[in-house]
């Protein structure tokens, strides 16, 4: 156990130096890409915001089912099957057909290549499930159908979220999917997430619809509130143009009226429809509806054929800027709810780094002094190993560009405390061996060999705990698992290669010395 070949010594030295270099790249600037890596600081250390958003898919499902009722009705109309009493209840579509048609309706839904009920050829499961309740047919989304629906609304939502966050212009945001109905947004360096939160909290569903007094409007009507105040207006459900028709939106200062407005440009289809509506609807009020609330309802005075227009509604410059931003980035497919938020100010982050570093330095000093007092020369060896171990640990974290969190720093300090365990086990064993063995080399060899299983056991148990933490923990706690886990490997390396190398050199030179340890 004490013999080291030259090649091995070279390898150990090179390996240690390499990782010390990588670790030091956190402090210096290297030209080389390989060395110019840095440990990422977690949001708790550099300050920033962590937002977990959940997509509320209920409205999407509701909307899809609504569309489906029309599709179903039209589909069977072509086949001369009359659909009766179609209605939606609790995310189910119910409808009746006459007894003779029942079989053919079922066949359409259950056909593997049905164009009404797709997905079967690809997923071996239909989009929709149909059940004959005896009273009527019950149609709802299958598991696969729901998964597809959620995935697609998540894909759309993440795109819109990314656009909105990018528009605000924070540095290096991290936007990730979580499950099939959540989005994680990490915004490093962002002190005050309020603006982003309010931007993400809006669906930004914009529609232009006429205000009407005709309760029997062909498309149906609904009563909507104005954004500010208690006023209400009855608005037709017919959508003239919607947010999808917008090409651009910008905040502007209307110098004549001395107010901030949002000017917008429409695409070709939108411009055409807007022109037509404004020409037929002169004198009528056109309501601009955002997320179910009327921003304003100006009276149409002229035909607007240019495809551009403006929205006024008592905006401040900030609210106009935000509305323009929302309109530019598009509407979310479904409302988002912020279900978890963690924000750390940059000065608290810096305080945490300082406290962590001071704790590390003090913990390190205490352990080093303790080991030196207890083991003298071998304590010195342990301490040198401990320092190299610390650098290798930082080097590994740097190499993988791991994220360091405050609990992560605690993990490093803990590693320092526990790293000496292996050396202590070995040294204590050697002491015991020396009681019956006068040959120093044999005693040391025996000490290393006989302590090996205990050391292995000890480290595997800690590693198991770290692995579970890594997979179950979130954010900062994950950082702890990483440093603790990596620390085990670097500790074993430094104990069995570096410390053993020093020990073997020392023992070889003091073969016959008594009370060596």
């Amino acid at each position: 156990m004490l013999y080291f070949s030259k090649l091995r010594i070279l390898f150990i030295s090179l390996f240690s130096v390499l990782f010390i270099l990588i670790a030091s790249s956190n402090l210096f600037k290297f030209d080389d890409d390989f060395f110019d890596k840095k440990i990422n600081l977690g949001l708790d250390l550099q300050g920033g915001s962590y937002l977990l958003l959940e997509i509320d898919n209920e409205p999407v499902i509701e909307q899809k089912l609504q569309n489906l009722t029309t599709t179903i009705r039209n589909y069977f109309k072509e086949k001369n099957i009359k659909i009766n009493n179609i209605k939606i209840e609790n995310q189910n579509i119910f409808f009746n057909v006459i007894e003779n048609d029942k079989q053919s309706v079922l066949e359409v839904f259950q056909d593997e290549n049905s164009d009404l009920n797709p997905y079967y050829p690809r997923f071996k499961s239909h989009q929709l499930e149909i059940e004959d309740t005896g009273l009527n047919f019950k149609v709802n989304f299958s598991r696969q159908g729901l998964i597809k629906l959620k995935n697609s609304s998540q894909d759309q939502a993440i795109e819109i979220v990314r656009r909105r966050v990018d528009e605000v212009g924070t540095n290096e945001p991290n936007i990730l999917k979580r499950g099939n109905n959540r989005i994680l947004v990490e915004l490093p360096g962002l002190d005050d997430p309020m603006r982003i939160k309010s931007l993400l909290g809006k669906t930004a569903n914009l529609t232009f619809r006429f205000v009407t007094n005709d309760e029997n409007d062909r498309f149906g009507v609904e009563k909507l509130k104005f954004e500010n105040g208690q006023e209400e207006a009855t608005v037709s459900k017919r959508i003239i143009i919607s947010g999808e028709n917008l090409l651009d939106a910008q905040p502007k200062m209307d110098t004549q009226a001395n107010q901030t407005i949002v000017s917008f440009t429409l695409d070709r289809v939108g411009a055409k429809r807007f022109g037509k509506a404004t020409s037929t609807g002169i004198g009528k009020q056109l309501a601009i509806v955002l997320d179910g609330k009327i921003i304003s309802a100006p009276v149409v005075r002229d035909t607007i054929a240019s495809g551009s227009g403006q929205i006024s509604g008592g905006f401040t410059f900030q609210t106009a800027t935000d509305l323009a931003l929302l309109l530019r980035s598009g509407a979310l497919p479904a409302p988002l709810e912020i279900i978890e938020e963690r924000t750390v100010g940059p000065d608290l982050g810096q305080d945490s780094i300082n406290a962590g570093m001071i704790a590390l330095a003090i913990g390190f000093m205490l352990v080093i002094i303790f080991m030196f007092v207890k083991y003298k020369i071998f304590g010195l060896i342990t301490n040198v190993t401990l320092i190299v171990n610390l650098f290798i640990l930082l080097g590994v974290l740097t190499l993988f560009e791991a994220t360091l969190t405050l609990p992560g720093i605690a993990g490093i300090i803990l590693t320092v405390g526990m790293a000496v365990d292996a050396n202590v086990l070995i040294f204590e064993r050697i002491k015991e061996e020396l009681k019956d063995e006068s040959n120093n080399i044999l005693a040391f060899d025996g000490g290393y060999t006989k302590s090996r299983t205990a050391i292995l056991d000890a480290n595997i148990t800690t590693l198991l705990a770290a692995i579970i933490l890594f997979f179950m923990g979130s954010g900062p706690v994950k950082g702890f698992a990483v440093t603790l886990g990596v620390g085990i490997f670097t500790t074993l390396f430094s104990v069995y290669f570096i410390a053993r190398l020093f020990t073997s050199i020392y023992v070889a030179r003091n073969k016959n010395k008594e009370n060596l340890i």
Partner: protein
Amino acid sequence: MIAFNKYYNHFNLLSSILIVVSLLLLIFKGLNFGIDFKGGTLIELRASDSKINVSSLRDRFNQMDLGDVSVKKFGNDTDFLVKFENKDNKKNIIEEIKTNLDKSFGNNYDFRRVENVGPKVSAELLKSGVIAISLSLTLMLIYIWIRFEWQFSLGAILALFHDVIVTLGVFSLFSLEINLSIIAAVLTIVGYSMNDTVVIFDRVRENLRKYSDIKIFELTNISINETLSRTIITSATTLLALLAIYFFGGEILKGFSLAMILGVIFGTYSSVYIANTVLVRLRVSQKTVLRDDDQNKLN
């Protein structure tokens, strides 16, 4: 040699009492869950005006109709920690609070940290925390079962349960907050306690093979003594590191390091006085390990 075995019975009784008391505390007093597991909102606030203190803050917050609000000093005199349930999960609650505080205190304060955990997320975090701890206990059980005879496994697992339950009992007794980092601490305690037990067990087994004429009562004592200096040194260095975190690592790590400190102390104690006494009570002898060795040979 220290006669640890003289006190096996005394300390077994003490541990039983500790476990029973801890369990009673956990059942009747319960744990003080933080917002990670209970849901709610947390604000860490730093004041630059002496007018802002616990009572003036409490007054302000109580006027805002946020439900049960707790205001505490956090570390030094200028830092405060405010927690409330946020039952209705109001969206713009932080803005509302800011506007409200501005009225009374002007610009003389600063939100250093804001955490808001919805009821769904907190329920999930609690579930995954419980799963993580159960999973780690199970994995340890499997590991030790592979490595040792069942008597040893039972001893180690009892020691583990003791450490986890008593640590949580202390948290319950002093109403210390349980948050995500405490779960991390408990898992690390599980690893540490196991580590400590395994080192002594390793020696017990070695000695069982070596001496056929020494009773397990004596043998465990010999093994404990032989590994004693290691036990003390490792606990000491780990505790030194943890004390450094506790005193210098900042307020956020206080709970975490305290849980770990308790865990290391209980873990060291239980290796000696629970794990080993189980071996004694189960009358482990040389036959126990030799039978296993024979089986291994046959395989």
